[in-house]
């Protein structure tokens, strides 16, 4: 996991007057599971299509293993793609679908047969070779699409929301399947999704995107625990985002109440955004802290209760395994390490973090 395999340098792309990607820089390392995560229209699929060769950037270049491949057509690239909605060849059998790339490369029949058999086994669809794509379920078709791509032994597999059309249970099974495949093949996966849970489960690295800008790059833990801005915090999981003031190092004023925190170097009396995850909000008896409130909503979610607590005019989202009925007076405590301080957006590209829903 050291070599930089793909380098996107200063990539810009517009469709008409619509700016999709603006001066994007990103590198992808060998053997990495990298996920491009963001809402629709954030540019994640366009990024993938630029790597695959289906779109060419207006500016910037795509480097692969040190060579410029910006103008190389898709059939000359050492990457293969698993498309959204599978894109299988419906006029061919499963075996013919998988063999397509190998036949184009004029491999011997024996080699092709071996490879097809191996690929079917790898995706747990042994013996399906003579069936037609239409006779398979969505999940099975998706696994064929993966098999069709990986028999060509690409250095990189590009996956464009491959699980989007599947139901929840199947999606979760396929996530583990993909992780297993990636480990068995030992190649780079670039995965596009708008599903934050999918991204957190599978990735080595997550790239959070919005409106053509990269918002944050990091491991799933970093992205979840230390979001760099309000957009990332809001997009990844539930969160309480509070406009606050950094009094000084390790002290922040949230809703007129001072909280101890562990962040430094934000300056003194600077406006900041604070993110607190719902599971990090602790509810205590009234007046145990200076922030008092009342439970206004309660929903049972299975693993935990989800509550809304109004305190100092802000509606807090709280997850707790302990039950506090509606109307209970409580006070709110957050331990210092669970308070995540974020800069307010200042520059143009950071404006993209504003959450317009």
């Amino acid at each position, binding site marked *: 996991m050291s070599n930089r395999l793909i380098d996107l340098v200063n990539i810009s792309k517009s469709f008409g007057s619509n700016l999709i990607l603006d001066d994007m820089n990103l590198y992808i390392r060998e053997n990495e599971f990298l996920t491009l995560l963001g809402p629709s229209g954030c540019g994640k699929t366009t990024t993938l299509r630029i790597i695959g060769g289906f779109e060419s950037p207006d500016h910037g270049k795509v480097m692969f293993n040190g060579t410029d491949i910006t103008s190389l057509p898709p059939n000359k690239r050492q990457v293969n793609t698993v498309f959204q909605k599978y894109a299988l060849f419906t006029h061919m059998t499963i075996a013919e679908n998988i063999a397509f790339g190998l036949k*184009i490369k004029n491999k011997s029949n024996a080699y092709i047969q071996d490879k097809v058999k191996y690929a079917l086994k790898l995706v747990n669809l042994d013996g399906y070779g003579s069936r037609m794509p239409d006779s398979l379920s969505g999940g099975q078709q998706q696994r064929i699409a993966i098999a069709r791509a990986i028999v060509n032994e690409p250095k990189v597999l590009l996956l464009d929301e491959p699980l989007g059309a599947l139901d929840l249970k199947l999606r979760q099974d396929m996530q583990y399947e993909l992780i297993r495949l990636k480990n068995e093949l030992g190649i780079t996966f670039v995965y596009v999704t708008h599903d934050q849970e999918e991204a957190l489960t599978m990735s080595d690295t997550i790239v959070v995107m919005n409106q053509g800008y990269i918002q944050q790059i990091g491991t799933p833990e970093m992205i979840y625990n230390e979001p760099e801005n309000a957009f990332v915090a809001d997009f990844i999981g539930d969160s309480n985002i509070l406009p606050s003031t950094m009094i000084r190092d390790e002290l922040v004023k949230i809703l007129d109440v001072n909280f101890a925190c562990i962040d430094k170097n934000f300056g003194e009396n600077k406006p900041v955004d604070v993110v607190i995850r719902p599971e990090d909000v602790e509810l205590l008896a009234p007046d145990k802290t200076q922030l008092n409130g009342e439970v206004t909503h309660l929903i049972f979610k299975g693993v935990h209760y989800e509550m809304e607590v109004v305190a100092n005019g802000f509606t807090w989202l709280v997850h707790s395994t302990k039950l506090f009925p509606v109307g209970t007076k409580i006070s709110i405590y957050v331990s210092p390490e669970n308070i995540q301080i974020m800069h307010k957006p200042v520059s143009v590209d950071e404006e993209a973090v504003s959450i317009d829903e």
Partner: protein
Amino acid sequence: MNKKWLSFPYILWAAGFIIIPLAMVFYYGFTDRDGIFTMENILAILSPEHRKALFLALVLSFFSTLICILLAYPLSMILAKMGNARNSFLVLIFILPMWMNFLLRTLAWQTLLEKNGVINSILHFLHLPGIAIINTPAAIILGMVYNFLPFMVLPIYNALLKIDPNVINAARDLGANGLQTFIKVTLPLSMPGVISGITMVFVPALTTFVISTLLGGSKILLIGNVIEQEFTQSGNWNLGSGLSVVLMIFIVISIIFSTLSDKDGEGTAI
């Protein structure tokens, strides 16, 4: 909510103008003037002049269909590749002639191609040798292609439009170049449209008598002309019906051929 009665007017129509006439064609076809059963009218197709007319009709329809495919396929590809907003005008241009009366269109060609017609006048004016295309099989093929081309374009265009662009991308992704992608993916996936187009051009071309009368003069007789003459000039309804039944067999064969290769009914939309 039983609304079956709504179909009654159509059933009446179908019975009066499709089923009964068809039954009468069969009745006349299998009887002689005295109403006695005979196979003579059917077997009359074997006589040299009828065989020749049927053969010529098959040959001319075959070439018209072939030319229609060669013209329509690239055109449909261009149309399908353009965005919806831009191509709707072009599609309109191709459908526009279909709104005009079929006879008028063919008559227009007659005027254009005649010995002293518009084209030859222009050629004469430019001191170029004139063309003698009117009253030849070539003129008939021209008329067929002109009249039936839209029926080839639309099903192919529809079939191409239905192909998921990502399927094409997938072929490119797996290493196929443009030509390989076309031969192995685009063409097979658009075959339902091509086949539906073949039926829609071949059948009317095979049975036409107007185009051959107007552009072929009285010299070139297609099977359609022979049948028409039996009804209108010779007054031999029995022979006319018998030959019609034979022609129907060819039509049914081509329709079966198209339904078999287009199980999903994908290409038939127009």
